[in-house]
């Protein structure tokens, strides 16, 4: 992929001065020896009173949208607002796993484009995002799960994705620490193996997009909370709601006028959309995760178990990262509990009995904006100029690049790109849902 014409053009553009000052090995050595401080990666500028586009949410999705608006469409009078700091939400809390072995043809095409953007990202952004293409394995513990794995493998193969169902013996060969015996409560019957899947340093993706967008003129405003969205002409109070149009946003640092406002706020998506009078098919639930102390590398692939509600990968530092399924009730509270940790540990030990002496280092949670069909909600809304890129549930990080690229195209051309056409808000009225529960959810 790195040698594709578009990547080459981008590389050449960057060399000609289209990108930010380049990082290099020589520069690293020079600064290491001289002790000179590194320059700030993005500027801290005053908030202006008007922008062409205001993006709410400074995570991977918001920053990628801003980056592609500037690079692919030349729209640079853009502000990205975040109530906390860049990457403080789901972008810094996910388990950094990427893959494209989804269930529906629409989903597979979409996530595969994202994976190919991740593949060339370190070159495109001139920042090492530490993409580790280590393979992704989804275990099947029941006949029903094995059937879904076969279904997914066939859909994937038809679209040219490297994905196949493997036997317990092959699972053992790939990850010797897994217990593939038949006397466990949930014996491993097989797995869906997806070699192009892997992990990425999620903070680096945030910083890379922020740096690239900043250099092209996009402004990032942290600690800037959106309090209201200003509308006119709508059927609801204050001109909000269907039939109206966006005129700007009211923030904790003053009003901004903007003809286009984009909601990229994941777990808080309903609260922001509510400010424009748009109701969404979304409920917010936390997903709990935990990490162990570091040990020597022994787990070469990402391992997911739907039946046991857990997924595991080992970081480059040697820590095991565990993700669980989303909590079973709506919640904006990201506090953990001993009950959760105990259940998670039990499930992990069922898969890998050998790690019973390892200690957990810390635990955290992030908010997931779940939709009824486990697919996102992207594109226009009944309020003109108000765009949404929400409903990212537990799969937002892996979709970041393609979402940014497609949302930027939707905003710049005022046409919905084909790749996100199936994910419009109107599908809930027409009934054309894109059911991804079998491939997106951990606990089902």
């Amino acid at each position: 992929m790195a040698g594709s014409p578009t990547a080459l053009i981008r590389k050449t553009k960057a060399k000609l001065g289209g990108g930010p000052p380049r990082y290099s090995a020589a520069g690293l050595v020079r600064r290491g020896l001289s002790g000179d401080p590194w320059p700030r990666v993005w500027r801290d500028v005053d908030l202006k009173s008007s922008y062409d586009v205001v993006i709410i949410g400074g995570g991977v999705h918001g920053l990628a949208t801003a980056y592609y608006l500037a690079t692919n469409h030349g729209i640079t009078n853009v502000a990205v607002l975040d109530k906390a700091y860049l990457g403080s939400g789901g972008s810094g809390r996910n388990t950094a796993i990427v893959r494209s072995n989804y269930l529906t043809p629409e989903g597979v095409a979409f996530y595969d484009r994202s994976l190919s953007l991740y593949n060339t990202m370190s070159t495109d952004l001139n920042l090492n995002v530490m993409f580790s293409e280590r393979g992704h394995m989804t275990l099947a513990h029941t006949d029903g799960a094995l059937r879904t794995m076969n279904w997914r493998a066939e859909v994937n193969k038809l679209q040219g994705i490297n994905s196949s169902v493997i036997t317990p013996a092959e699972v053992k060969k790939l990850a010797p620490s897994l217990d593939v015996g038949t006397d466990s409560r949930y014996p491993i019957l097989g797995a869906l193996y997806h070699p192009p899947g892997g992990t990425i340093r999620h903070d680096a993706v945030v910083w890379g997009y922020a740096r690239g967008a900043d250099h092209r003129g996009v402004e990032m405003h942290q600690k800037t909370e959106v309090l209201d969205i200003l509308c006119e002409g709508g059927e609801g109070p204050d001109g909000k709601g269907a039939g109206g149009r966006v005129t700007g946003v009211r923030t904790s640092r003053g009003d901004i006028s903007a003809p286009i406002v984009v909601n990229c706020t994941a777990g808080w998506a309903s609260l922001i959309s509510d400010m424009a009078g748009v109701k969404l098919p979304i409920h917010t639930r936390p997903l709990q995760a935990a990490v162990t102390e570091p040990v020597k590398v022994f787990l070469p692939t990402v391992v997911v178990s739907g039946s046991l509600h857990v997924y595991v990968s080992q970081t480059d530092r040697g820590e095991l990262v565990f993700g669980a399924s989303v909590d079973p009730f709506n919640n904006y509270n990201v506090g953990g509990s001993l009950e959760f940790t105990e259940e998670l540990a039990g499930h992990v030990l069922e898969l890998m009995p050998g790690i019973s002496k390892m200690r957990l280092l810390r635990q955290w949670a992030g908010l997931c904006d779940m939709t009824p069909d486990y697919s996102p909600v992207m594109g226009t809304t009944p309020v003109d100029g108000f765009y949404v890129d929400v409903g990212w549930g537990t799969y937002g990080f892996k979709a970041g690049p393609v979402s940014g690229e497609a949302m930027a195209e939707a905003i710049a051309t005022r046409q919905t790109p084909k790749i996100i056409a199936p994910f419009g808000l109107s599908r809930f009225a027409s009934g054309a849902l894109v059911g991804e529960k079998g491939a997106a959810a951990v606990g089902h």
Partner: protein
Amino acid sequence: MLLVPTPFGPRNASDLRYVGEATSRPDPDTATPEAWRDYLYLEHNPAGWMRETWYDRINRVYFQVERNTATNEFRNPTMPVTKHGKQA
């Protein structure tokens, strides 16, 4: 552990099943497709107090309770209501 004050006394959330935001079903004979879609899919999803429906697996009844989704405080659990609007 989440301790839920049900009309039958406090219960661990694992004894219960979460149903979701308390809504009222529109009349299927007269509802417009939009009203039906709203009922099926759209949610308020507030960060604060919300009236919600839970199912008690032990007593096998549905009941409602108010919960603050930002702090997990509960209040006002109510007895299930029958089809004819009477308390069961």
